């Protein structure tokens, strides 16, 4: 059965507006790059402003700190890398992993898991490592 075609009119759209199609759909990298640029420019601008108001060195420093704190862009909001020591979890089972296999680099929980690792193919071992985010480039 042919589904009823719902093609209602769209009067709410402005027919005179032409989309500037070649300006659309920038990819993520360029957008983030633009953001970074804008942030830098903004920082510069504020610093100039403060400088032009001719304050003491100390006060300038304080102002700078304030300035840096105020600017919040998409990138500055991002969480920093972790500084806590990493806990080792077994790549295969997910339990705690005190040991690491020197041949493949996989972490494992106990010797029965090690038996399993010994029989893994190199591509399977690489998949396990990739799940952890470790991508050995030359192997």
């Amino acid at each position, binding site marked *: 059965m*042919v*589904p*009823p*075609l719902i093609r*209602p*009119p*769209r*009067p*709410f*759209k*402005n027919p005179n*507006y032409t*989309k500037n199609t070649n300006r*659309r*759909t*920038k*990819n*993520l990298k360029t*957008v*983030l790059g*633009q*953001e970074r640029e*804008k942030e830098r420019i903004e920082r510069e601008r504020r610093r100039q402003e403060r400088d032009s108001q001719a304050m003491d060195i100390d006060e300038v420093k304080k102002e700078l700190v304030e300035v840096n*704190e*105020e*600017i*919040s*862009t*998409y990138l*500055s*909001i*991002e*969480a*920093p*890398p*972790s*500084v*806590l020591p*990493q*806990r080792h*979890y077994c790549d*295969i*089972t*997910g*339990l*705690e992993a005190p040991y690491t296999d020197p041949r493949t680099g996989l972490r494992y*929980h*106990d010797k*029965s*898991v090690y*038996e*399993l690792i010994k029989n893994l193919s190199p591509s*399977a071992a690489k*998949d*396990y490592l*990739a*799940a*952890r*985010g*470790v991508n050995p480039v030359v192997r």
Partner: protein
Amino acid sequence: MDEAGTSNIFYVPTPSLPSITPPDSYDRFRSQSVPLIIDNGSSNLRFGFSTSASPQSSPNVIAKYKERKFNQSLLLFGDAIDTESGAKSQGKTPWEGDVLLNFDAMEHALDYACVRLGIDAEGIDHPVLMTERLCSPLHSRALTSELMFEQYSVPSLTYCVDSVMSFYHNNKPISGSTFNADGLVVSFNTASTSVIPILNGKGVLSHAKRIPWGTQQSTEYLLKLIQLKYSSFPTRVTSVQASWMLHNFCSFATDYPAVLRSLKIPANMRAAERIIQFPFAIPVIEEKTEEELTRIAEKRKEQGKKLQELAAKSRMEKLAKKETDLQYLTSLKEGKSENKREWMHVLQVEGFDDDAALDETIRKLEVDVKRARKKDPDGQDDVVEEPSFPLIDVPDADLDEEGIKEKKKQKLMKAGFDARARARREKEKEREEKEAEERREEGERGNNFDDWAARLRREQETIMNKIKERGRRKAALSDRKSAAAQARMKNIASLAADERVSKKKRKAGAEDMFGADDEDWQIYRKLNAAAVSSDEEEEFNQLRIIESKLLMYDPTFTAQHTHASITSQRSALISAFRPQYEEGDIEGSARIHLNTERWRVCETYFSPGMAGVDSAGLGEVLQSILARFTEAEKARLVKNVFITGGPSQFPGLQERLYGTLRPILPPEMHLGDIVRAADPSLDAWKGMASFANTDEFHQVGVTAEEYQEWGPERIKRWWGGNCNSAV
């Protein structure tokens, strides 16, 4: 797997087709400037007028699909994508993670919203309140503003942050007063998780932080884990099914290391697992009935018999022919006339060169006939006649040349005959010995069973140890640095070295003496690491014989003690982690067991490093944010910790957050209970709707004139919106 009463087995839900509902009537809202609220989420688009109680919600995906049946191109949005199976792969969302990038899709999404709401006026004549991401990139905001103002001609547009509005909805001030609640908002979104401190009703966005880990990444991680664990799964696991599993079976652990330590025990792991049963197909085996089988067997037997008969017949024919030939030739020979020439002529006609050839053919035929006769079932001649060798004893001198040749021939034949007789006797002796041995063993077994069993078991153990040693040696040889490998290299080097031949031998002019001593050849065994030597096979054979004897007679020695089962035994832990079903169990092989994954996936929120994302986890971020405030402010913030967003519905989250925050705060500071939004997915929209009905709403929007003047990136600074590029 089934406990009494509760079944652990869950079935993957079958997708259901969506239903078509007619769009709303617009009449209520025509020419009234009721604010239009759009919660532009990464997974769902929620929209509606601010006076409605709840929004319409639809997945935020658009697909342009060319249908094969009627060759039409369709524009499908949201749930409708499920109706066409090929459309899913073409689905595009306006969001890429957290950033609004695809504006065509955004335009279609807004079109859909307007169509559903039944808007048929020229342009949208309502002030619009839309969400954007925390500190959204200006590019996204610019294009959205452009879209809204130019394409849809809205009178005014306001942006807000969804989690702050959800917070507002749950901490609404008494009507009339301004919003000045304090709190710490943790917002769980599709592609990120953010923490926003709110003081005096205003979001301190400069101190907010965002972790790039959300539902999308969690689902992918769960899918990856399942694919690694079940690498040979019969069906493909889709991300839709993975997200279903995530929502239903995964939870936060209050103390992750403790949970792991308890799961270490296989019994606990089995108790904690959830079994997901995927659909499977039972292959139809054509079972032949009994009579068919017997019929086939009979047919085969008959064929065999026929062949045998044919063979016998042909043999008889050949034999008859040979006999006739023999008769003919012998008669020919007897009827040999004295006339030599005639005889020669006759012979040539027959095809023989001379007399001797004729004689030979006759002799051959005679032998054949005799042998054929012997082979016939009637007339077995077992008696081995000792052929006579008369000429052996006659000294050489008495015989002529022919005689000597004959004698040599007879000597050879006698030697062969003797050898054969000797071999036969030895075989018999061996058989007798073996029988005697078996009888002895039976006697021993009968008399002293335990000793016999113990002895056999010890033998089995020694052989198994030898096999293990061999395996270990082989493994050691493959590792370049092991002692065995280095010894092997030394052997090779010493063989190749020239100084092996000592000076004395060289002086004596002797050649390389390798091989004179039998032991030298052992070096090949030592060097060739890869060969499966015949010793191994022998050991395996011996082992098998011993084991079969033990299995037969010893009741306590079961199949589990055999070498084969011991080597293929999987530890209890691994079989609890990933139970192995038998070969033919189709239902079992289409099952997924989730045990550690249930907590592992949610734990990544608190340490994204587990999944390879180099970012601080939620606990660390909370700590660093709180550290930037003064003690007084901190106290105000933690009194009201608020979680919102779809993923905040994971069980165990509140306890976990409480457990994370409590240790990092001074003990006397009061940490309130973690409050979850009343309706985590829709509260943002509801907060926006209730805000839009207040007077303050009209002051914070960007009107069309302001848009023309400032450009699309500027917004007004207010407590619920972003402050980048804000006036």
